[in-house]
């Protein structure tokens, strides 16, 4: 995973709430067995509409998505994160993310930033007035800045450290294999195994 310390780019306003993962990438695109090539499915239904914000030339190069509240609800499909990343997004900003989507994004290095709704509205106004507005998301300082505005955001120290170091969780957990070994020794015998039942 690439290290994430700071990112600067233009942003696209997605003025919708409750953007569920079926909208981010419909189920018909989930049949692939790879992690790449999902950009064609990103917001597939909405991209048929020439008016849709992602189809507007002014926002073509955007790398920051600024969305309404409750972004990423619904299905646990990590393909939603891959589709956003494959398309070129590095950061998504919203006032609230669904738990599973947020977990997936932070595992995969797509930074999801939570700001107050008033701050989201202010960014929408700025990038609609001037689509080339550059937004800087600084994970080290936990700030989003554009023009002369600076917004602070919260993210737990552990996740921030992991993203800044570009570490994946499995490698970190494997270092604690001794803890897992000893925990397993105390597992109650009545808990089921999935081994086939004979007879």
């Amino acid at each position, binding site marked *: 995973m690439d290290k994430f310390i700071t990112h600067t780019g233009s942003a696209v306003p997605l003025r919708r709430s409750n953007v569920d993962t079926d909208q981010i990438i419909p189920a018909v695109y989930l*049949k692939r*067995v790879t992690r790449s090539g999902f950009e064609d499915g990103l917001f597939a239904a909405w991209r048929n509409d020439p008016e849709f914000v992602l189809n507007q030339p002014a926002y073509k190069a955007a790398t920051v998505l600024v969305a309404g509240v409750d972004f990423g609800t619904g299905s646990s499909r990590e393909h939603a994160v891959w589709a956003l990343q494959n398309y070129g997004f590095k950061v998504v900003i919203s006032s609230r993310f669904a738990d599973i989507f947020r977990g*997936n994004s932070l595992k995969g290095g797509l930074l999801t930033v939570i700001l107050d709704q008033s701050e989201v509205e202010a960014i929408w106004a700025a990038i609609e007035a001037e689509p080339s507005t550059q937004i800087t998301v600084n994970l080290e300082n936990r700030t989003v800045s554009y023009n002369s505005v600076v917004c602070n955001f919260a993210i737990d*120290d552990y996740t921030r450290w992991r993203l800044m170091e570009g570490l994946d969780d499995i490698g970190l957990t494997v270092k604690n294999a001794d803890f*897992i070994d000893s*925990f397993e020794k105390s*597992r109650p015998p*009545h808990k089921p*195994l999935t081994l086939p039942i004979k007879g």
Partner: protein
Amino acid sequence: MAKTLAEKIWAEHVVRSASGEPDLLYIDLHLIHEVTSPQAFDGLRLAGRAVRRPDLTIATEDHNVPTQNIDKPIADPVSKLQVDTLRANCAEFGVRIHSLGDKDQGVVHVVGPQLGLTQPGMTIVCGDSHTSTHGAFGALAFGIGTSEVEHVLATQTLPLARPKTMAINVEGDLKPGVTSKDIILAIIAKIGTGGGQGYVIEYRGSAIRALSMESRMTVCNMSIEAGARAGLIAPDQTTFDYIAGKPHAPANFDQAVSYWKTLFTDQDAIFDVEIDLNADDLEPFVTWGTNPAQGASLNSNVPNPADIADEEARGAAERALVYMGLEAGTPLKKIAIDTVFLGSCTNGRIEDLRAAAEVVKGKKIASTLRMLVVPGSARVRLEAEAEGLDKVFIDAGAEWRNAGCSMCLGMNPDQLAVGERSASTSNRNFEGRQGKGGRTHLVSPLVAAATALRGTLSSPADL
């Protein structure tokens, strides 16, 4: 210190806890399926890792499999490749799999409980958000993404931040014709799609205690539609009776039950949030919009967005009515339906099929619609056939299919056409969820059955 049920289960599964880090939580059962696992197995191969506990892992095929002609090769080559990939991965890594044609194949959240693998006090994960279903047994169960699937395959653990706790107290008695689906749809409408975000919900109260095990699963299943990754119900005699006799029920059953009986929220434990709902007031509930919180009593009208005070909710309602092709003020019961879908991990179990069959028995579905009956698992299908339910549905004019997720998510050939309108016992009414341009109303099995007979959204009381 007094603990909630969720806190008790959490504490019993902490492998490692360190200040400033998420807890490392042990996972007792990992359910996998064809859609969210291939990239995880690829990751294992790339890193040269094994599946740590194949004996705590089980796979089935559900999301993209066809529900017709299952004795023939899967026609869609992309779907076929995905299913073949799961089979090859399970063979390579030694994971038990129930494939199409096997009596234990089916929707993963129907299969776990029917095998008796879902038991109180466990931690259960699956790369599917409706893993919350298993919480009905007093298990801490939640959906995960593919990176986490790989993590659990490799380590049988997950690093997780401790969730907050929410109690939803449902007291009173349900009126005839009102089901657990109506309870959960009413809860979601009340707290919103983000209301449970960051929480584990524990459903409590006399109305919850009175529910059957399968009805409890319907409630916990849709916790995620309220934003909560997990829903829980404390185990009781109903739970123990359901598990008894299942293939994977504990050999020393009494010992297990005495442990299960410790799994409840302590009297003086404090939830971060408590919400009350009166079961006496509930009526059959349906959705009119494009998120599961956009629902209302079946006896009411399509709401007028202008009456919604919150600007954001008003805009969302306006967009939803355009997508759904509905006029504000239209009685919900006047809405004509093209397809009735009975099935899914929400309402595809035997009790759901029995309840719907009771309504349609000896009658004919409206000539203006089609009805798909998709049992949640092959075993549910066999059980229904043994009871003659297949004949009841077929005689009424419905289609009797094989098990799978089917039209719940429109990944296999069972899809709505553009503009086609469904009454669906599934869990999501998102735009295009059941097929591009399709329009979904979420309903209970009873409403689905009555709607099939009348052609418009209806409850059995309207017959």
